[in-house]
């Protein structure tokens, strides 16, 4: 076993060790904490890119790397497995982590204690959830992620955050119980917790056990749907994301995608075409749930009166689009949904960061007051003034305006950026199965999807234009803020990523097509995982 085989566990171990090391470091040694934290996230980015390259070298659906923890042979031990989708999600997480941590280092990490350690622990949970191939281990990584996210949401304290945190924690604790019930039922039916093993045990299963397994899978899915904010399980989201500090909210943009990832992976693995009667189990629920989510998100966007709530509803709209997208049959639709996810996650994170800077130009005086209140509520943690040392960038207002326009284009799915390409590809694949010369035969639900995709974009445009005009075009309110490089660079970087996947749409789509093909070949993935042998051969 050479050193490169251990690469797959780095995304879990690196933030875990760094986070643990940061806990005892004194809060006054901020520079050290920021440097170590950033080194860790950029290390994660490099690792994820290496895994991505490794994953794309493999032809077919088998995982490019598996890792047996404790060298137990399968199905007894816990296995980590990486394929294209895993590596892609790891890379997306790392990009968001780099950007938000850099942004937080400008000032937000100072409003409370242990921000950097909690941030690393959250990365452990997110990366672990992407990598693990064991249902109960997935639960543990979910809890690690959630526990850290509770701390991050409450970062900065204050009445608003504690109230939002209370709701967020209660909802997630209830969802964790649902998660455990689902896992227990699946174990009762299949006798295994290894996802690949369960997938291989489904085809020869007796009808009684199949019913038990489907019940378990449905209950388990509820836990993930809460996380991915499907209607009606999403009322916790706008409030808590609006209450969180902006960099934390930006990082939370990946958390709804963790739910989507697990749904996509498990659903295509367990209920693939080989699963007999249960093939495609629950697909219509995902589709209708996604449509309802999209409709509610459009209404929420129209009703939003400030940027933060608008951003919260944009997260929900993105989830709705994705849920409906993965429920559409076919490899092409999955690839289109993944493409949409890349762009929308980057844009949402950029938008959350941008809301912080936009609030600053709206009302300079009021904002300073708010920051002072913040500092007092955080018991003696004093936030520095705006004109602190740091490289300021010229033409701050132009930068903010441009970023706002780009975010608007991305979030509403207008041309020319990748939001448009993603939505267009989804529409095209939704219609691909039908004969377009006979429009009457296209089912109502497909029309509903097309209409909702357009309407949600329109709702986003109306609200963003309303808020944007009120902010940028009212001459009296202009108070040009001092914008520091460390605050502008992450936003610019995230938006550059959006532009990049638009310009390179061909190669990116090609990669995602291969990803989707592999996902739809669940059996090959499962067999690939189950074939991984312990180092040094079987012990007995």
């Amino acid at each position, binding site marked *: 076993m050479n050193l490169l085989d251990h690469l797959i566990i780095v995304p879990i171990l690196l933030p875990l060790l760094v986070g643990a090391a940061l806990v005892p470091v004194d809060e006054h040694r901020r520079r050290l904490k920021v440097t170590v934290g950033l080194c860790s996230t950029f290390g994660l980015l490099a690792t994820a890119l290496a895994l991505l390259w490794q994953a794309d070298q493999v032809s077919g659906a088998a995982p490019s790397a598996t890792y047996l923890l404790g060298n137990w042979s399968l199905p007894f031990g816990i296995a980590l497995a990486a394929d294209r989708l895993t590596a892609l999600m790891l890379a997306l997480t790392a990009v968001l982590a780099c950007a938000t941590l850099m942004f937080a280092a400008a000032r937000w990490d100072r409003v409370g204690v242990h921000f950097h350690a909690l941030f690393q622990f959250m990365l452990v949970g997110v990366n672990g959830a992407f990598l693990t191939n064991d249902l*109960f281990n997935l639960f543990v990584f979910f809890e690690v992620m959630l526990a850290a996210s509770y701390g991050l949401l*409450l970062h900065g304290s204050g009445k608003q955050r*504690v*109230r939002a945190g*209370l709701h967020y*924690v209660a909802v997630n604790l209830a969802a964790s119980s649902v998660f455990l019930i689902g896992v*227990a039922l699946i174990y009762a039916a299949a006798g295994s917790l290894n996802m690949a093993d369960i997938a291989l045990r489904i085809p020869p299963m007796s009808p009684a056990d199949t019913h038990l397994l489907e019940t378990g899978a449905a209950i388990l899915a509820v836990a993930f749907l809460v996380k991915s904010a499907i209607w009606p399980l999403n009322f916790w989201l706008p409030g808590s994301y609006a209450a969180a500090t902006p960099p934390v909210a930006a990082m939370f943009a990946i958390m709804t995608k963790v739910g989507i990832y697990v749904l996509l992976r498990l659903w295509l693995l367990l209920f693939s075409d080989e699963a007999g009667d249960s093939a495609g189990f629950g697909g219509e629920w995902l589709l209708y749930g996604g449509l309802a989510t999209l409709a509610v998100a459009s209404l929420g966007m129209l009703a939003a009166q400030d940027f933060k709530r608008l951003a919260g509803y944009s997260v929900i709209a993105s989830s709705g689009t994705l849920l409906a997208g993965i429920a559409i049959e076919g490899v092409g639709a999955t690839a289109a949904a993944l493409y949409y996810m890349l762009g929308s996650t980057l844009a949402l994170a950029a938008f959350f960061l941008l809301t912080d800077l936009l609030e600053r130009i709206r009302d300079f005086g009021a904002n300073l007051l708010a920051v002072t209140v913040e500092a007092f509520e955080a018991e003696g943690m004093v936030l520095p003034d705006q004109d602190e040392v740091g490289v300021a960038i010229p033409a701050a207002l132009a930068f903010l305006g441009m970023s706002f326009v780009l975010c608007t284009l991305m979030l509403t799915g207008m041309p020319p950026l990748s939001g448009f390409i993603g939505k267009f590809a989804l529409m095209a694949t939704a219609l691909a199965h039908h004969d377009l010369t006979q429009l009457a035969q296209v089912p109502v639900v497909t029309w509903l999807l097309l209409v909702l995709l357009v309407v949600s974009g329109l709702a986003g445009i109306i609200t963003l234009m309303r808020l944007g005009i009120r902010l940028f075009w009212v001459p009296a309110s202009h108070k040009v803020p001092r914008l520091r490089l460390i605050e502008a660079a992450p936003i610019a970087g995230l938006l550059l990523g959006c532009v990049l996947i638009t310009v390179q749409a061909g190669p990116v789509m090609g990669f995602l097509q291969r990803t989707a093909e592999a996902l739809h070949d669940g059996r090959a993935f499962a067999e690939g995982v189950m074939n991984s042998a312990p180092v040094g051969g079987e012990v007995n």
Partner: protein
Amino acid sequence: MELILALAIGVLSGAGIWLLLRPRTFQVIMGLSLISYAVNLFIFSMGRLTQNKAPVIIDGELLPLTEYADPLPQALVLTAIVIGFAMTALFLVLLLASRGLTGTDHVDGKEDGSA
């Protein structure tokens, strides 16, 4: 035995859900605790109910598999208890912070009807 266990799980989760939907934070935390007890018992029962059977293989005594209790749910329950305990403790701190900051134990941070 099945009936008693099923009743216990049902009563615990029923009471837990009722409390979870109440407006006071203390009721919510009690509800969450009751639900987590119910879930822990439920995980136990998924390894099938057995009596007087060991979950470990004793050296030199290899019996058929039906003679053993399933050890995996027991390990899972242990992990679930630890995690549930930690999360309850965290929620308790949050509950106290909310009480201190808002002056009320209502989950919304303000009494019904007040602005």
